[in-house]
């Protein structure tokens, strides 16, 4: 792996955004900005291919960047859908600062993905500071740029922003504490479990596990919808993969009681997420709660994979990719339905099928994929998770997961049926947002009917 090209690939998006600040590009209309960003993503793709084909040169004496096939597959999807969702940001006339912060977010997540494997290797074998610092840098760039992404003048989003800033500050402090505890030289045997505890709390605060889930619904409602969509897809995915890679050797470090507590928290987050989503009136808030429940599934999946000692987290990456694409596209649709940025109510949705069949079909497809109905990718992800759960835990956890799948199906069904019934409701403002959604919907269907595509992407 040619590390020079990888380094270039990580830094390029961050610095590529700077010229946007110059005055005359700001006023130009959207096409130029889209073109500008398009060039960046094409170059990133080319760099990505070259990074692999060339012979591998190393910056320092030990390997800084390493990637496994599943991570490569998620990387490819991040690149494709990153471009699509930045296109969304521009299409729903987000300001240029949003675009810049989105690009920096992308570079942060690339950094995190590339450095997660060296971090976990160095964790156990040979502790080296550089390996611990790099993921931290990636993590911090992501969090700071997402603050820029969420900024919006309206006072409710300001309040959401403050909550978000407070949460990520606390979580990053926990992560930093965790990482440094890992790399201290003292060989007191209880230091490692404490370090993992700190690191796990930090990350689960970002994902939205139960005790730390309070901020997520408010932020997803307050912040502008296109930025929430982008940050969920790009930000959360890389974070969860970092957790998955890191947790592979979790099993060796800490005792089973910690895992039991983690499973318990996961169950709580599943239940609270799904059940409180049932009675939500505002669809965006309902999606927030479903993200919390997804966090629960992810934690359980991560633990199952770590017990099975799967070095390459295929199942988690597949699940995260499919559910995040579905949720973020739903956010885009709900965002476009709003008037003057006030989140719509669920009975404003009724009768959408009669007035705009295409939006309604897209909406129901994304909801069905999130709920896990067969012809779409969500089903295969759920089948994947269930077979792993059955493999590791006894059957009871499978049952609880299946029950919560059902609750998820029921509230997504409520929305679909409301859309399909008669009545007067909101209309979509701008039509340009449809292109990426068509692509996302087709991608989900194709992935659902032929999951091996994800594997092939990995090997590219």
């Amino acid at each position, binding site marked *: 792996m040619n590390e020079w090209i990888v380094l270039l690939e990580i830094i390029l998006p961050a610095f590529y955004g700077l010229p946007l600040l110059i005055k005359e590009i700001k006023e130009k209309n959207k096409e130029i900005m889209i073109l500008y960003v398009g060039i960046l993503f094409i170059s990133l793709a080319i760099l990505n291919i070259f990074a692999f084909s060339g012979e591998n040169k190393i910056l320092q004496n030990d390997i800084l960047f390493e990637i496994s096939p599943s991570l490569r597959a998620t990387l490819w999807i991040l690149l494709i859908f990153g471009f699509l969702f930045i296109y969304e940001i521009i299409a729903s006339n987000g300001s240029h600062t949003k675009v810049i912060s989105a690009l920096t977010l992308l570079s942060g997540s690339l950094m995190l993905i590339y450095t997660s494997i060296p971090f976990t290797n160095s964790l156990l074998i040979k502790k080296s500071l550089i390996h611990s610092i790099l993921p931290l840098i990636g993590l911090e760039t992501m969090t700071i740029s997402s603050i820029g992404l969420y900024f919006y003048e309206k006072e409710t989003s300001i309040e959401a922003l403050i909550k978000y800033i407070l949460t990520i500050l606390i979580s990053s402090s926990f992560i930093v504490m965790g990482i440094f505890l890992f790399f201290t030289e003292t060989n007191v045997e209880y230091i490692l479990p404490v370090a993992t505890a700190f690191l796990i709390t930090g990350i689960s605060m970002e994902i939205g596990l139960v005790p730390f889930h309070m901020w997520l619904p408010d932020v997803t409602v307050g912040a502008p919808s296109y930025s929430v969509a982008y940050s969920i897809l790009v930000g959360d995915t890389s974070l969860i993969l970092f957790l998955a890679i890191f947790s592979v050797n979790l099993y060796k470090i800490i005792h089973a009681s910690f895992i039991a507590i983690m499973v318990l928290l996961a169950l709580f987050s599943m239940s609270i997420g799904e*059940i409180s989503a049932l009675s939500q009136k505002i669809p965006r808030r309902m999606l927030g709660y479903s993200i919390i429940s997804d966090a629960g599934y992810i934690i359980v999946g991560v633990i199952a994979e770590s017990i099975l000692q799967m070095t390459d987290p295929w199942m988690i990456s597949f699940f995260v990719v499919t559910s995040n694409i579905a949720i973020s596209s739903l956010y885009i649709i709900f965002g476009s339905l709003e008037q003057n940025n006030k989140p719509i109510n669920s009975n404003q949705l009724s009768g959408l099928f009669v007035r705009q069949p295409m939006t309604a079909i897209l909406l129901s497809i994304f909801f069905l994929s999130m709920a896990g109905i067969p012809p779409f990718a969500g089903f295969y992800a759920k089948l994947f998770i269930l077979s792993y759960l059955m493999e590791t835990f006894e059957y009871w956890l499978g049952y609880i997961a299946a029950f919560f799948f059902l609750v998820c199906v029921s509230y997504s069904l409520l929305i679909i049926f409301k859309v399909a019934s008669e009545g007067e409701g909101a209309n979509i403002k701008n039509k340009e947002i449809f292109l990426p959604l068509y692509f996302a919907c087709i991608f989900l269907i194709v992935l659902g009917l032929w999951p091996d595509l994800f594997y092939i992407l990995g090997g590219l």
Partner: protein
Amino acid sequence: MDIKILLESILFLPFIASSLILILGKYFKRKICEIFSVITGLLTFSLTTYLVTFQKSIKHYIVIREFSNFFFQLPFANLEFFIDWLTLVMLFIVSLIGLIIIIYSIGYMHESKDYVRYYALILLFIFGMIGLVISGNFFLLYMFWEIVGFCSFSLIGFWYMRPKASRAGIKAFITTRIGDTLMLAGIILLYLNTGTLSLVELSQRITGIPTSSLNMILLLLFAGSVGKSAQFPLHVWLPDAMEGPTTVSALIHAATMVKAGVYLVARLEILLFIYAGLQPSLISMFSNTVLFIGIFTSFLAASIALTQYDVKGVLAYSTISQLGYMFTTLGLVAFITPSLAIDSCVTHLANHAIFKALLFLAAGCVIHSIEPILGLEVSRDIRYMGGFAKKMPSVTISFLFGALALAGFPPFNGFWSKDLIMENIIKTFEKVPILSIIFILTSLLSVIYILRVTYIIFFSKPEKSFKIKNPPKVMTLPLIFLSLLTIISPFIFQTLFNEITFIEIPSYYSLTVSTSILCIALLIVYLLYVKRPWQNIFSNRFLSSLWNILFNAFFIDYFYEHYALPALKWSFTEVAYSLDLLINRLIENISTLGFWLSKTLRKTHSGRIFTYISMYILGLLILLISSVIWRWIP
């Protein structure tokens, strides 16, 4: 002509005729339909007489196995015929009565528009009855049994516009259906124990069945015949079946269909005792139940018939009691030799078919004539009739002949068969005295009720006389032919079937008993109805309440209608309905529970930032403690 073709033609001729009438009937005038059906009746009758007279050579029985067509490849369901003297007797009766009924119904159904459906169903019924009688295995017998049941249902409810008629049709169908399903269970058990259903193989293998399950099978089959021949528990449908046209009552509910039950039990007994050579004492449980039900039904029906005002109702109850006689003779198998019992039963069956058809048709004439004046409902009530002797002399004579035959006066055919039964019953006097006492009582009652009806209709003074037109020639001629038959029928049957003793000089003892019964009965009728000396005889409390019980048929029908059925229905529907409600309510509650839970959960989510931070710290503490705790727990 080879017997195989003969049988196929006898069987399928009515079927083809009925389907032709059903399909093409609309396009031809009424005359052509009538002539066409009379020809088919005549043809079947002549073929049967040919079969009966020229096939003397049958020793025991003949079995004809039809082409094993690919229709019925299942082992138990191949088309085969089984002919022996019992089948020949039944065939002869069915075709004879069928022919007479068709001729008679030309006059009777003259005004009604649905004659196409009527003739098609009558011919279909004859096809079913013939098939039932000659079928060689129980599966085929059950098929024809169902067809006959369907025809009786559709003919009872012939005037489907009248709710009373169609309700009577349903009642008949459901009660017979209960009997049929039990019979089906019996057939299945029979098949599973012996492996075959065809009569020939059964005669060899039936002795192999253990006696307890053999008794069970026979009882189940007897349940089917109880349903069809309207014996005690399932007799409620026959009096209501009188809603149908009188020709239907004459053909189906007097002469042929109700005999199917008797035929089935007779067929079983012949199979068991004569062909398989089983010991009668082995199946004593079965024969005793047959005996008990026969005796009890005959007494019950005879007593009810005394008080009925509807002329067809009286005749219906008298049919039930006469069928009770036949079942009693079949039940006497354990006491007297089986062949004697079966002979006496068949003789009574033959004679009863003739004089009961005669009685019904004569009553039909009377009803037909006063119907246009009094309307359908009232025309059957004997209180409005009276003094018809002067108006319709030929009908009166024929009704009188039928009545005397039923009562058992010497020259008529009823006398021979009744005395034969009397002889058998008296033989059992030493062992079971109660049997013969009840039998004597029932024969006394039967003489009284039939003479009462004849006197009130024909010879009593009418309150108001109204002008009625004489029934057409086409209805009176069959009556005269039938009344002739009541006298000469035993001799004809004796010449045709010499295996059975139709005419047998009764012993001195039974002769005295029967003549004394006749005289007492004559005296009672004379006193009660002709002279009426004690006018207030019915006023005292005991007699009037007895009369009321008898009139309402011991409230059995009332009990079924108002207590048994509604209770059954209520118990099922309420239980099922409440269960359905319970489960639906359960499902609804789960969903409301879900929504309530989510509402409460949402309340816990306050917007304040400080709760968030405190939750973070709490979460961190939980994880820290759990990661370190394992060092202290042992």
